[in-house]
């Protein structure tokens, strides 16, 4: 490998205990993968395939049962709570439904300044300016700073969640079905924003989705997950053109066909 990966997983397994006689359930079993800095890896699979559990392990919200997770060369699966406090700000998660991940009683200003104040990144007086700059970064008008999430449209709420994730200057963003709940135009707008942010801030993305079309648009590499394992992993082009596994073919078949768009549609 030419470049040291930002994130490298080695045989990561997460088991959940059950009362069932059949024993423990493995949500994630023996997953190995890596992402180079400033690249995007798409993790694609149906619901229940273990994508979100894997995301929680990488974000240090869950500890894997076994295996190693190297972030900038350091095995973060083996760190204690105190050491994790230094790592967590560098890995941020964005969830599917921003209505559930944003505090409904807080204004955008409070939502954006809280991480800065908790991590003691700046003085209270400076925090508001930083929040304003973050909103601008995700193209939300500055006058929304005093408003609460229910006064934002669905797309704007997801932008706000992205702005909060950016507040601590992370290196890796984990986007867990971050576009799935949005309408067509809002999806495209956020996808465009993510590409802009990636090139301007040098971010690395783990893009989790069941939508193979969007995965192919954003990511250079695609990993297909099924029953907690990586079924197929390769360059996006190869995975799309010559899918090796049944699950990949099934996901490909579920992508809606482009309509027979007439010339008319090319007009802007």
């Amino acid at each position: 490998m030419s470049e040291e990966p930002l994130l490298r997983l080695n045989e990561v397994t997460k088991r959940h205990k059950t009362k069932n006689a059949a024993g423990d359930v493995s949500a994630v079993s023996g997953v190995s993968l890596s992402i180079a800095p400033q690249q995007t890896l798409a993790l694609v699979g149906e619901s229940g395939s273990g994508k979100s559990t894997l995301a929680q392990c990488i974000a240090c919200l869950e500890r894997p049962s076994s295996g190693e997770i190297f972030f900038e060369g350091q095995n973060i699966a083996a760190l204690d709570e105190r050491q994790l406090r230094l790592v967590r700000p560098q890995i941020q998660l964005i969830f599917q439904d921003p209505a559930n991940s944003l505090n409904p009683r807080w204004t955008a200003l409070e939502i954006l300044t809280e991480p800065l104040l908790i991590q003691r990144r700046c003085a209270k007086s400076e925090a508001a300016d930083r929040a304003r700059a973050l909103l601008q970064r995700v193209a939300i008008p500055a006058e929304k700073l005093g408003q609460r999430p229910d006064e934002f449209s669905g797309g704007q709420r997801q932008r706000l969640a992205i702005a909060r994730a950016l507040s601590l200057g992370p290196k890796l963003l984990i986007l867990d079905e971050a576009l799935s709940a949005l309408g067509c135009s809002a999806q495209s707008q956020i996808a465009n924003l993510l590409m802009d942010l990636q090139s301007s801030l040098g971010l690395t993305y783990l893009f989790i989705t069941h939508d193979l079309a969007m995965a192919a648009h954003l990511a250079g590499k695609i990993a297909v997950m099924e029953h907690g394992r990586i079924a197929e992993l390769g360059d996006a082009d190869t995975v799309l053109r010559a899918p090796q596994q049944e699950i990949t073919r099934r996901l490909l078949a579920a992508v809606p066909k482009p309509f027979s768009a007439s010339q008319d549609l090319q007009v802007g």
Partner: protein
Amino acid sequence: MTYSSRAADSLQALTHITFQLESGETLGVLGESGSGKSTLAAALPRFLPVNAQIHGEVWFEGQELVRATSRSLQHVRGRRLATIFQEPLLGLHPTLRVAEQVSDVLAAHASVNRSALPEKTLQLLSMVFPAESERVANSYPHELSGGQRQRVLIAQAIACGPSLIIADEPTASLDTTTQQEILALFRALRQELNLSMILITHNPALLAGFADRILVLYAGRIVEIGPTEHVLNAPQHPYTRALLRCASALAETRGANRRQTLPVVPGDVSNIPTRTQGCRFEPRCPDKFDLCTKREPALVPTSAAHNVSCFKYGG
């Protein structure tokens, strides 16, 4: 069947909504969040909160629903007109087995005699779960996948033999492979039971080959309505055109345009003007001209059965 309704509030969620649905027909309602599409789903069977006011008329099987008494509405809801919502977990009771929840629907509408309930319940479940109806009947909702839960809601919806099903984003919380399975189930049931359907969605790709006609909703107004092929292949309204251009780019999987900027409808629903006159789409419209801020365009025919509300076509 004729619907002609105008729901209004101090915040007008829907205005001048007039359409007709034939028996056995499927109408797709297409709109972004904030377009009023869910209000429409809830307004027809009058599931709206008490502070909502509906003006106009909704005619369903010869009966007017807006002024109907709640007693006579009970004979319509569930029995003749069933509604399915997006999140199946919210529509199911968490601690009752599936069989009980389906048979409750049958019992509530008194269409079956008590001793026949278990058999009728199983029969309904086998229509939506050809392979595993017995196992599902004894399961709790949390033991089922999202797609299976949605099938249970569908079994409840068809339980009393309705003539119309209103489905509000029934597949939005499901992954793409399951979405297609649910649509296939709807297709089969529609045929078998001669159902009319109103399918409400933000995703035009779901409507291709599924709906007979498409109604495009923007900021509570009908901006375009016509046969599915016409609306998808030759959209007229600037909003429909921008939306479909965007949806069609999203469905392009071959990676030819990888990482290029995707087409969007500029702005979002927060750009709806607060002024009372003029076209609601004007601030986001690429084709706007002077007249657009002066008054609201009327819905005018551009071809047989295809109507558009835009000054480009007369308005």
